[in-house]
């Protein structure tokens, strides 16, 4: 069902309407190869967050196809919870579970979805906490951590599921400036280890550093989908030029 040559994520002509009058995604076609890091950027309201949420079927779409590891999301036979468990997702507002300790946040889905034992889940969780530099906070609750720490926990929580790909939906947009770096550092490390990543972000420094390709969206359409160097060197569309000039001007 999967072959290593096929892209990890394939989107073909994906369209989504909120209402007959309002189309949020228009014929979006792109792909993410295994081990590839793709940054999705664009002005707010361009549909980039909606697009990335379609990849693990958190958002339904009405036309087109999306395949992840060769599995068609729209196929009625697809076990979506099982597929989602293999795709890590990191949200803008972290979405840690506030009533659970950090360790419990890391163990919950490992136990309930993957069926791991508490010991196994705990060992995995602790190793990942250590990796994101938060071992000493293991027994705290999310509300007792800073935003940057919470987002690192959220990344660890997603990694604990041994994902085949990671989706990041504006992971640093809700953070105070001094906390952005600690989260980006973790993501850069992840990218360099060869994780397949699709990242919605305005952090162009991150894109320059680790992205292989950049997808630029505006008004629900993919306007540019090019290698990083091409995109930053000479964006072809006026809209991408305008966007870059606005966010890179300072």
């Amino acid at each position, binding site marked *: 069902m999967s072959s290593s040559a096929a892209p990890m994520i394939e989107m073909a002509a994906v369209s989504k309407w909120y209402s007959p009058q309002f189309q949020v995604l228009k014929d979006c076609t792109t792909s993410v190869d295994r081990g590839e890091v793709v940054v999705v950027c664009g002005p707010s309201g361009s549909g980039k967050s909606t697009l990335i949420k379609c990849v693990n079927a958190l958002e339904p779409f009405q036309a087109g196809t999306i395949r992840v590891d060769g599995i068609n999301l729209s196929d009625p036979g697809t076990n979506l919870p099982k597929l989602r468990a293999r795709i890590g997702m990191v949200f803008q507002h972290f*979405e840690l579970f506030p009533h659970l300790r950090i360790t419990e946040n890391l163990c919950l889905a490992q136990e309930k979805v993957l069926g791991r034992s508490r010991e196994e889940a705990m060992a995995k969780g602790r190793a990942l906490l250590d990796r994101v530099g938060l071992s000493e906070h293991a027994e705290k609750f999310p509300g007792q951590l800073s935003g940057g720490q919470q987002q690192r926990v959220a990344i660890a929580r997603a990694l604990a599921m041994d994902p085949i790909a990671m989706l990041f939906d504006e992971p640093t947009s809700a953070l105070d400036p001094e906390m952005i770096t600690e989260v980006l550092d973790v993501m850069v490390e992840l990218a360099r280890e060869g994780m397949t990543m699709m990242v919605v972000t305005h952090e162009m420094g991150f894109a320059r550093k680790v992205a292989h390709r950049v997808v630029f969206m505006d008004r629900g359409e993919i306007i540019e989908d090019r290698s990083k160097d091409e995109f930053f060197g000479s964006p072809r569309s006026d809209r991408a030029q305008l966007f870059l000039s606005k966010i890179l001007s300072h």
Partner: protein
Amino acid sequence: MNYTWNWGIFWELNPEGTGTYLDMLLMGLRWTLATAALAAAIALVFGSIIGVIRTLPHRGLVLAGDAWVEFFRNIPLLVQLFLWYFVLPELLPKAAGTWLKTLPNASFWTGAIGVGLFMSSRVAEQVKAGIRSLPRGQSLAGTALGLTTAQTYRYILLPMAFRIILPPLTSELLNTVKNTSVALTIGLMELTARTRAMQEYSFQVFEAFTAATLIYLALNAALTFLMRRLERAVAVPGYVTGK
């Protein structure tokens, strides 16, 4: 006012031959407690189920939940108890109706279930509001981790929703206790009914109702105290409501 106070009345024997007047009131209290406990359990269980149903992305279920809430919320409790106690047995097939009418402690079961269902509509409203007050990202995060809808509710949404609605749920618990007094109209000899009986036997209306007032006050004060303890016990460290 020509009234002879007699605070010693509670220690005098009642004409029913069941001990003192105080014993009589306490017997009523026991029925009040039993009715309130069963009603509260019914309200919590049904209210939670209906409240959850109304937040699911399924039109039919949402409509059914809405109908439940509107039915039990929009008809006066007194009318509902009359419906269950006097009207329902007549509408059922004869055998079932007779069985209902001859059920031992029928007024207790009817009162507890009637008050419970009435209160379930209010609990359902609060459970729904509690779930709705959580950021949408919480259920998205659960779903993204591969949890099923049931697991997402069980492990993520409901634990937080119930914490958030504990204060209003406390008010509903107190309302449940107080509403059991309506069951005296279908013959349940709970605290208020016993108080009226005491008044009729002894003519000491002020003493009887003073006692009932104090008992209700003490009972609800104790429940409030316990619920506050519960709130503190399950409070989430570092969590600020509305953040």
